[in-house]
């Protein structure tokens, strides 16, 4: 189906058609369903990860992302704060 997908992407109008949106939303919802996780739990996990790691290094709290990726992978992205950032909570973690 890769060919068709690519084509759909190129053709343009179809890429934001509601059928495609439905599929993408479903994929996300089902990742949570299958992992028996809720977005709220994920938020809690994120907060706890921040608490643990910030005991050791300065991290850019606001930019910490914990997400469930396709195939049931829990991924945490933790940008470090600027060196000497003086405990800045919203340090500029790139991006």
């Amino acid at each position, binding site marked *: 189906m890769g060919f068709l997908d690519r084509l759909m992407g190129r053709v343009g109008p179809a890429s934001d058609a509601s059928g495609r949106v439905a*599929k993408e939303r479903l994929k996300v919802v089902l990742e949570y369903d299958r992992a028996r996780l809720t977005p709220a739990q994920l938020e809690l996990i994120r907060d706890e990860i921040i608490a643990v790691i910030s005991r050791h290094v300065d991290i850019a709290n606001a930019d910490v992302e914990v997400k469930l990726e396709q195939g049931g992978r829990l991924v945490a992205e933790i940008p470090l704060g600027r060196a000497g950032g003086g405990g800045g909570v919203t340090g500029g973690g790139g991006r």
Partner: protein
Amino acid sequence: MDEQSQRAQVFTITSGKGGVGKTTTTANIGVALARRGRTVAVIDADIGLRNLDVVMGLENRVVYNLMHVVRGVVDAERALIRDKRVPGLLMLAADQHSDKDDVSQEEMVQVCEDLRTHVDYILVDSPAGIEQGFRNALAPADRVILVTTPEVSAVRDADRIVGLVEAAGKPAPVLILNRIKPDLVARGDMMTTADVLDILRVDILGVVPEDAGIVAATNRGEPVALDASSRAGRAFHNIAARIEGETVPLMALDEAEAKGFLRSLSNLFRAGPDGG
């Protein structure tokens, strides 16, 4: 009925979400298999919310129901109602006045066991949901037919069923994608069969187009498969053929049409540098 050496296979038709066409699907597969000369018992396992009898137009002929069989009032074979329009088609109604908890999984298994030597196929119409009624319907199943429509909520619930069927140690369900609207698919406003299969990762048993004829047929209590010339009717006959091991291509009503359209576009791109 002739005593047969072969034992019937039990197919449970289920969906998770209500209102996606389980009962209509059960009735029509029953009709289509019977039209192929098979003896088919269709069982309404939706106790308390009986529907299969009215969908099949047999509501006035119900004497005994599933509960009578479970309680030993009558043999399973004698409780079956013969559909006079289609030789070989038999129906066992649900009890409208009992509760789903009044039947156990063991009892459902036993009812099907009793019928296995009398018919070629047993189709169990499961209630919606994932509670006791669903588990009762699942218990006797050799195969599970999962019905869904190409909608986010229905597919999400179907995914839950896939997990529960697996957890019950049954073979993975096969999918019937119901109420596809080719015009919506063509303009990208409905998920395609490929989309749904990609998400649920199950095999496809059939695709059934949205068909106003089904509404009219159900109003009259005449399953649409009685008219094999209708589009939906043909879809059910194709499904019956696949159940019997025939290889029948999927009806050309979504991807094929969309692809045909895209393929003509793709020819424009073929000339492009990456020659995809």
